């Protein structure tokens, strides 16, 4: 087990102009302490062995890279593989990061952890590792998401976490994150904040990227075995804050351009970009600061943050990680968007054709892959990062589709 050394962020926590630390001064010493602790532990063989142990024996890594024979045939183009992050313990890629950060918190002597959650996947994952390591967990979740994801709320409580419903602002992930930051400002001395995506003030975008980058490293090794090569032709992943996508991309993103696969981040177009009801920060946003980081963002002419909209709670976030913002500007990755309707179709498609019910988030990646794969050739390889499983979404999909599951 090792954690790669990526050339970014720089020592100021920036990916080009993006990132940084736009937070109240109260938090600066805590962020400095966290950065210092992490950079030391990142090279500590004991810490890495511990992380490796839990990733293997607790989370179930490596996650399979599954050749989707049916979809490959249906789409008649690229050979399509699915990186099965949905098979991890707790049902999503989130556990890669929460295990890493919980071990970090433990090493730093913190007994209380807090987190924000949108779909509830990150919250469940934090509640899980808190139970495992005997940490007290408080999870902030927007009231709107509490309604949409009742099952995950129950799971978190079952695991012993306290779930605090956030009723300010748009009552979704952005407001849950505000509230988690307010808690951290207040209890910073004894509390560790387990941020769930590649957003927030430095060092979080780096930290979460590093813990998630195991996805891409495994993918390379698995492709070598299956296809005799380390690098696919394209990787498609959904992007809200962007942690699963960074996890899938990072290992390849810093390759020289001629060796790099096409990296495609799929944002949520909600009811359509033109409707204004979407969560496509890169595709349709402008640069700004949210939650401590300079990045692409949905905000109005006055800099007031605009509510994001997506059928998928996990993509319902008005910003996107600073590293994605950088990839977009530099052409390292491409960013596209997929509507609620297209995602629902893909949700059904993957269920019917491969027997895999994906998270609605991941269904966005599947929906774009359905457009891309037919344009590729039979000797090309396309990997879809299936970031999570869809059990949590079944109720919401039933509500939207009615009983018509066909």
């Amino acid at each position, binding site marked *: 087990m090792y954690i790669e050394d990526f050339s970014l962020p720089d020592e100021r926590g920036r990916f080009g102009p993006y990132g940084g630390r736009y937070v109240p001064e109260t*938090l600066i010493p805590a962020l400095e302490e966290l950065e210092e602790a992490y950079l030391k532990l990142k090279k500590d063989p004991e810490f890495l062995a511990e992380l490796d142990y839990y990733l293997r024996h607790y989370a179930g890594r490596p996650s399979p890279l599954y050749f989707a024979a049916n979809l490959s045939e249906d789409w008649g183009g690229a050979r399509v593989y699915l990186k099965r992050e949905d098979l991890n313990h707790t049902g999503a890629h989130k556990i890669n990061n929460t295990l890493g950060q919980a071990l970090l918190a433990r090493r730093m002597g913190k007994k209380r952890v807090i987190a924000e959650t949108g779909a509830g996947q990150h919250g469940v994952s934090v509640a899980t590792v808190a139970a495992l390591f005997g940490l007290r967990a408080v999870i902030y979740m927007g009231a709107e998401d509490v309604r949409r994801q009742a099952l995950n709320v129950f799971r978190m409580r079952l695991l012993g976490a306290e779930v605090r419903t956030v009723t300010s602002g748009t009552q979704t992930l952005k407001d849950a994150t505000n509230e988690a930051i307010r808690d951290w400002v207040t209890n910073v001395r004894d509390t560790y904040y387990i941020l769930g995506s590649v957003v927030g003030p430095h060092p979080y975008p780096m930290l979460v990227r590093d813990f998630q980058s195991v996805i891409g490293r495994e993918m390379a090794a698995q492709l070598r075995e299956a296809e005799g090569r380390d690098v696919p032709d394209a990787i498609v992943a959904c992007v809200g804050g962007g942690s699963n996508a960074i996890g899938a991309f990072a290992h390849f993103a810093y390759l020289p351009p001629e060796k790099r696969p096409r990296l495609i981040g799929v944002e949520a177009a909600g009811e359509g970009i033109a409707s204004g009801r979407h969560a496509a920060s890169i595709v349709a946003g402008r640069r700004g600061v949210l939650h401590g980081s300079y990045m692409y963002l949905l905000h109005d*002419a006055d800099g007031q943050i605009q509510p994001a909209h997506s059928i998928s709670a996990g993509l319902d976030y008005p910003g996107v990680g600073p590293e994605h913002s950088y990839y977009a500007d530099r052409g390292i990755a491409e960013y596209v968007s997929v509507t609620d309707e297209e995602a629902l179709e893909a949700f059904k498609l993957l269920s019917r054709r491969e027997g895999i019910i994906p998270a609605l988030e991941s269904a966005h990646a599947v929906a774009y892959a359905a457009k891309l794969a037919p344009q590729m050739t039979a000797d090309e390889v396309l990997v879809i990062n299936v970031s999570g499983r869809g059990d949590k979404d079944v109720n919401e999909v039933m509500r939207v589709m009615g009983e018509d599951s066909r």
Partner: protein
Amino acid sequence: MSRIRKAFEEAKGRAAVIPYLTAGFPDPESYLRIAAGLLDQADMLEIGLPYSDPLGDGPTIQHSGDVALSQGVNTRKVLELTAELRRKSDKPLLLMTYINPVIAYGPERFFADFAAAGLDGIILPDLPPDEDPQLVAKARAVGLDTVFLLAPTSTDERIEKVTSYVTGFVYTVSVTGVTGARDRLPDLAPLVRRIRRFSDAPVAIGFGISNRETAHQAALVADGVVVGSALIREIEAGRDPAALLSEIREGARVE
């Protein structure tokens, strides 16, 4: 000497009294009337620019910002209100704003427009100054004082760095936490003493000042007291906050 520094000097025998009000709350007209009333007793005024995601603020100020935003109080409107207040008073006016509205408006234009409206200084609660020294310089270039925050968690290294960007006063946060009225404050002397080792600027204490007692406790060690949430609660309760401010002004007396 800037108008802000002069106001600290002129507050003899007491700490300077610095009320904070969210601009346009409860509505633009009442705001102007209340703010002008408070300015009679105050040494300077903090004007809060309403923001959708105020992560340094507690529920009272969050709510006041939502109310103002829902009435269409945008940056342009806050500029107008600032100019109005300048016509009514010659006391120092400071703007407290999160960084994103500044970025969205364009920092140079933002600072220039507010300076032209009569603003004296700017407080940026989510911009540690070393994150963007050029932006700080742009505010300075149009004659605005730049106020930054320090907290009980600030190390000597941070205090030295942050105070090097301060021109108006050092805004010292009394507790680790968000804004909001509190019944009592921790011992503030050690933090203020550490700040004074690195800076000659006046030190004002904010967060948690809610009444005569907390104002007095802060005044014993600092040069100014900032009061926000407690005043906004008075407005929410339908009372004129002038009575509370005069109580706080009494508490700020140290001779």
